[in-house]
């Protein structure tokens, strides 16, 4: 069942507007690939091109090493969850789910159990007789997922399939989709804005930005070793803090940089030279206000957000740069006071002026 997907310099233009600028990507058979990227970066477009719904303006698309650019969508063996759901408005939920199977020529008796099972997974058994119009947003989204998963395609494409579900359901659905992937073993491409989904489901995350690939890699790789500032900022929530810094000295085994007026020694050699302006990056969850670690700066607390399980401090450094600190649990810190933020130098990132990690 599993199918490889290869994009070769794939481009997409809408009229004179380039939205995908030549993407090269290889997805191995049975891989679970997650596309992430800012809104409007071209994720849906990419999925739609793979599905055959959007013409490929340039480059080639290979499925199992066969060129597919001109093959009709119906013949590619792909199932897709649309970002806009695109449920058949004139069919009941049951019919919506059964439609693909009917099309594939399954018998009524074969269809029924499959549909019921999918409905059970998606917790929409009670809604099977309704028309999409009479469903809530999340219920519609689940039907849209169901329509894809009742089938056994070569490739699944999911376009933000869980965005309108509540947290609990989202976790359950995530588990179910992972299970489905395990059982069917087919290739899955999944678009999401949810960090947790991306981190937990993906074999490989593809970070897109304005129609280009910024980095491809395993989830923790991207988290721990972002190739550039964009990826560093995009992976992980809350976002990584970026502070202006300057390299003071580069030694063999360590580098000293100046951040917020403090000279800080990093225990590794950076690809830079003394005097170079760089960006220092540190994730909010890697900052602490307790003792231990290296002091970064004493910061003024602008805003405290208490999330229950965590507390966010939005602060300003003495030189006026923003710094977010994520603390565990519910902390009694007051707005307007100041604290000293400290960090573990092994956990910080440094980027050069072009954004590349050094």
């Amino acid at each position: 069942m599993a199918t490889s997907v290869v994009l070769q310099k794939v481009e997409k233009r809408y009229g004179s507007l380039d939205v995908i600028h030549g993407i090269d990507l290889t997805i191995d058979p049975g891989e679970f690939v997650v596309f992430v990227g800012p809104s409007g970066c071209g994720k849906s477009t990419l999925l739609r091109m793979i599905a055959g719904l959007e013409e490929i303006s340039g480059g080639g698309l290979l499925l199992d090493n066969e060129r597919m650019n001109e093959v009709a969508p119906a013949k590619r063996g792909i199932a897709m969850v649309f970002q806009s759901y695109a449920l058949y408005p004139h069919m009941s939920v049951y019919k919506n789910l059964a439609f693909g199977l009917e099309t594939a020529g399954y018998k009524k008796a074969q269809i029924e159990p499959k549909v019921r099972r999918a409905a059970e997974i998606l917790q929409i058994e009670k809604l099977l007789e309704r028309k999409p119009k009479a469903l809530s947003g999340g219920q519609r989204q689940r039907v849209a997922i169901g329509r894809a998963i009742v089938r056994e395609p070569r490739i699944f494409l999911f376009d933000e399939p869980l965005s309108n579900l509540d947290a609990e359901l989202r976790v359950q659905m995530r588990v179910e989709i992972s299970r489905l992937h395990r059982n069917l073993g087919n290739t899955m491409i999944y678009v999401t804005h949810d960090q947790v989904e991306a981190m937990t489901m993906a074999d490989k995350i593809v970070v897109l930005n304005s129609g280009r690939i910024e980095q491809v890699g395993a989830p923790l790789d991207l988290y721990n070793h972002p190739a550039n500032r964009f990826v560093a900022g995009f992976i992980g929530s809350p976002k990584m803090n970026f502070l202006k810094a300057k390299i003071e000295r580069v030694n063999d085994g360590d580098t000293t940089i100046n951040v917020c007026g403090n000279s800080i020694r990093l225990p590794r050699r950076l690809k830079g030279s003394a005097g170079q302006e760089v960006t220092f990056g540190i994730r909010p969850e890697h900052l602490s206000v307790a003792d231990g670690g290296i002091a970064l700066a004493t910061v003024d607390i602008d805003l405290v957000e208490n999330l229950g399980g965590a507390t966010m401090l939005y602060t300003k450094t003495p030189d006026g740069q923003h710094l977010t600190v994520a603390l565990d649990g519910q902390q009694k810190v007051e707005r307007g006071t100041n604290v000293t933020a400290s960090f573990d130098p092994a956990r910080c990132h440094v980027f050069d002026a072009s954004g590349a990690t050094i």
Partner: protein
Amino acid sequence: MNNAMRTMPAEAATVERYRGAVADSRFRRLWNANAPGYLFLLPWLLGFFGLTFGPALMSLYLSFTDFDMLRSPGWVGAANYVRIATADPKFASAMSVTLTYVMLAVPFKLAFALMVALALNRGIKGLPIYRAIFYLPSLLGASVAIAVLWRQLFAGDGLVNAALAQFGIQGPSWISHPNYSIYTLVALSVWQFGSPMIIFLAGLRQIPQDMYEAASLDGASKFRQFYKITLPLLTPVIFFNAVVQTIDAFKAFTPAFIISGGTGGPINSTLFYTLYLYQEAFGNFRMGYASALAWILVIIIAIFTAFSFLSSRYWVHYDD
């Protein structure tokens, strides 16, 4: 829920199934790209080439002959066209009558049809009956009853004048006065607004309700909703009605035929283009000439239509 998916059988043959789908030659690619379209078009193509194209071509040929329907046609070159252009005052008069009719009947009819469609698009009681009643004039088509009725309305002693008399106005016999008769035909056309009305109704039904929800939250009054939401979203249908009604008005025949008894009178004031064409063909046995008239009309309509299509880019909103 739980491991329900596990029991789904994997389909081993799938890979084979998709392999065949790959286009392997130029021909296949062409075929794949075009075949569905042409297959769907097949009935129409058959009809066009089997039934329409031949006769149309024939009539084009006939327009270069002196065909009188009874004898074989004789080639006369462009003589018919030359005559139309240079020596046929009736052509000009028929064209101007027709243009007047088009310019008046189409906009009024469309506006009226849209108004009624809007009125009938609400959730009021007895709607189906109202709709049917408002369609009735169109149901009667071009029957004798209409001819008589129009006389009763617009003759010297008709209802219209009786109404005008209330205001001390003594009207002429509108229907048979050369200065006014065309307007009674315009009125007839407007009164038979049923078909554009139904099409408008169908169009109104297709406008998503949530557009009105959004607009009403944006504070838009009913009127503003109408002209900011309804009208723009109805433009494909308005466009259709405008094009089709214009073509129809150019080709208008029956109203003048029944109201004037085929004469186009008084004084050619209702001598529509196609009525003239009909007189030439069937009254004066000049089918060749009539064919030339017909093709000139086709060209004129085509120009109007082409213009409409060009303009549609700027005002017709398609959702696809």
